[in-house]
């Protein structure tokens, strides 16, 4: 069939036709706003960030110390057993370097994005964050990094209470 069909449906538009208003369109901008409850586990996690600490939860069945913390272990499917602090140091599991913003526009200073496996958590328990105070070409897999915290009075109980991680 594919070989026999001469014409496939679809009328391509040129970007100039759209830009110059030669195509009839209708526009709308969503006005909905959202406010999420942080939930049971994340409320504690975010409050600890305010104090300059990173907390995880432990499941006594599989033994995993998990970050971000959860009130249940998704593998053993039981409640987690205790809160446990992990360190604010870790190693770079993987990283990427962004030259574009969310709307695909270019940004001037590249952002170094990383998954950081935190010391004191189970192996491979990483969190996503940014790396700074280093040229992006110098970043290495397995590099040791440490959290750079906002001053206590500026902390709001969000993941950005850690400004970024820096090499140590």
């Amino acid at each position, binding site marked *: 069939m594919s070989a026999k069909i001469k014409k496939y*449906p*679809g009328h*391509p538009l040129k*970007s100039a036709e759209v830009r110059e208003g030669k195509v009839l369109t209708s526009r709308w901008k969503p006005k909905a706003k959202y406010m999420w409850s942080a939930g049971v586990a994340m409320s504690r996690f975010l409050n600890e960030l305010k104090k300059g600490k990173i907390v995880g939860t432990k499941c006594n069945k599989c033994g995993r110390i998990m970050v971000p913390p959860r009130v249940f272990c998704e593998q053993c499917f039981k409640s987690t057993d205790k809160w446990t602090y992990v360190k604010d140091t870790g190693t770079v599991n993987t990283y990427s*370097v*962004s030259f574009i913003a*969310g709307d695909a526009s270019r940004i001037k200073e590249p952002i170094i994005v990383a998954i950081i496996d935190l010391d004191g958590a189970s192996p491979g328990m990483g969190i*996503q964050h940014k790396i700074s105070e280093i040229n992006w070409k110098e970043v290495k897999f397995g590099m040791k990094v440490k959290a750079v915290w906002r001053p206590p009075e500026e902390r709001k109980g969000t993941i950005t209470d850690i400004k970024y991680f820096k090499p140590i």
Partner: protein
Amino acid sequence: MLGKKRVAIVGAGLTLFRRNLKETGKELCYGATKMALDSAGLTLKDIDSVAFGSAPDAFDGIHMKGENMVDGSGAWRKPFSRVFVGGGTGVFTADAGWWHVASGLFDTCLVVAEEKMSSCYPHPAYAFTTIFDPMMSRPLGTTLIWIFALEMHRYMHRHGIKKEQIALVSVKNKKNALDHPCAQLAANITVEDVLNSEIMCWPVQRLDISPTSDGAAALVLASEDVAKKITDNPVWIDGVGWCIDSTYWTNRDLYYPDYVEYAARMAYKMAGIKNPPKEIDVAEPYDPFDYKELHHMEGLLLCKKGEAPKLTAEGVTQRDGDLPINPSGGLLGVGNPIAAAGLMKVCEIFWQLRGEAGKRQVPGDPRTGLAQAWGDLMQYGSVIVLRR
């Protein structure tokens, strides 16, 4: 075979894939669905049910867009359901159509997948920023390319893979797409072109990525007894599989897609496939990025972990190679209207196994093929195995 009834594909349809098509989503659905029905010599009266797939509503800006598309999908006064598993939707919609018929509930089922990403401006990438966790990811300004670049880099690091090895996938697929009449980004490019293209999010560059697109695809499925009355040339759905991993994506090693392997094993078991590289004649793994084709070849057990770049360099995955991969041109070449792109891959395998793929036809009279899609937070795989 697992189901109560064996299920065949008896028709397929596809629209052009383009950055911006004049048609609305439902008009695109109509184009693909009508073509699929015509190719099977059927009308809407012959159809018992409709399985529909489309990815985030945020692209179309129409909440619950499944309902918006029903009239174009041939679902007027019929049992209709929409499935949605992110980028994995296209192949999963075919899987969903399979269970409609395999269960014995329906003799025929239309499978329709649509995406119209151009409605979201200035760039549909912005709609993707709403998929992330509100506490851990969004405050950091996370984008989709950031996280895929994290995965690509981890894969490269674990196996010592170079960018020029990965770029060969983009070169191959965009070239294959030169023979696809619906293709959006078909081109003759070189490895150097890829390596010199604009850096989006290192290690991802412009030519490592598939475009955003508008498009639709459709299939007609029928139970064995009905299929044999419709055509002398049915293509059988002999295996389906799907699997999801944890949403805690920073707690997994991204170098290998375990969930794709689980989905593949489910489909292979159903199809009685013991040695995938030997038994699969042609495959369409999901390739929204060039590294994903390699990542998925490994997850689908078509080669060993870390071996896909070597097979690519040796030409094994070319159309005339021992294991042709993405002979359509894939998402990198044909385009990536998300759900429609996944179903385009199933259409391609259908045409390849019927010997109807024209200039794209792989040699050697292929009898068994596979299509796969991938999505959500780097956590979902859907697989379908087809046989002539």
